[in-house]
């Protein structure tokens, strides 16, 4: 897990007017607790049990990182970034050059995509937003203990937005499905097998 490395990045760069804010999209703070406690973060380490951030920033998978400047402007939209190389053989994204890019941003203000931020910002379709409404309804039904009805709407949400893994995988713990288990493996095999990517890093 990457949180201890993010904490190191925070400590290294905080004196230069920088902070990491980490947010766990998890149904229950207790799910995130072991990861957070192991990292002893001094940066704000938050929990979003309603997946609000996914809706607000059109986030469709984790990990996702965004760079926000001093004026509250997104200067590098949704990107995939791993801080440790624990799973590099799976995702193929070498953390070292990406961490250097963060350092260069903090020290020199370069983002690597100057002038292209807007076109690289992904925007949701009407169907994506319908999927999110289905997901909200599903979660509410689940919280009411109406499991079968919830399951129908979780499935519907995933069918509407098959690329949205905050819905398709992120709903698994809410539905009593192991998010690392056979259902997930089958889903990702089918997705990748039909020519899609599971991670969508920015092109540069």
């Amino acid at each position, binding site marked *: 897990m990457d949180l201890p490395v993010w904490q190191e990045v925070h400590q290294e760069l905080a004196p230069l007017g920088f902070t990491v804010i980490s*947010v766990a999209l998890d149904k229950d703070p207790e799910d995130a607790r072991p990861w957070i406690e192991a990292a002893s973060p001094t940066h704000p380490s938050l929990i979003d049990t309603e997946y609000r951030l996914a809706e607000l920033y059109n986030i469709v998978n984790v990990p996702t990182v965004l760079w926000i400047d001093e004026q509250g402007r997104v200067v590098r939209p949704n990107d995939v970034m791993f801080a440790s190389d624990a799973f590099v053989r799976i995702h193929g994204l070498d953390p070292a050059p990406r961490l250097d890019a963060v350092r260069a941003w903090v020290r020199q203000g370069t983002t690597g995509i100057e002038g292209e931020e807007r076109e690289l910002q992904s925007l949701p379709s009407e169907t994506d937003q319908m999927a999110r*409404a289905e997901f909200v309804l599903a979660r509410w039904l689940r919280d009411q203990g109406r499991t079968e009805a919830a399951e129908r709407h979780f499935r519907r949400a995933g069918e509407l937005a098959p690329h949205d893994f905050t819905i398709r995988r992120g709903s698994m713990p809410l539905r009593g499905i192991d998010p690392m288990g056979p259902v997930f493996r089958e889903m990702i095999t089918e997705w990748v097998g039909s020519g899609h990517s599971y991670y969508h890093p920015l092109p540069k």
Partner: protein
Amino acid sequence: MTTPFTLIDETRVTRVDAKMDDGRVLVDPGGVERATGWVRKPEGLCRDEVCVPVRNAGLDRDGRIDLEVMAQTLHRPIAVDTGEGAAALGTSAVDRGNLLASLEAPDITLPDLDGRTHSLSEHRGKKVLLVVYASW
């Protein structure tokens, strides 16, 4: 006859009375206003200073408002489960798209493990690396 119905507007959950008519969910205008802030006026559906004209005559039925026609009028998605008596109104793709295209980082307030809340906007003046992850 009316039945209790739960209307979720983004994160706000409101109990209203609804009439089910042939698969349509009809809510009285007062309930719609409590749940969503939208008011039915002669000029359209209005909230604060904004009025959206109503082009679909199906919005008004028996002095009530058809929820799905309302969502369509506002270009908002709606997930409905008539059997469970609940619906969720989402954010329109156009509104969300405009906000994202502005590149203004939407503010959000979230708790840490101790329940202490933090807002993104508290960190103006710093560069922020927002890292979104999950245990799953």
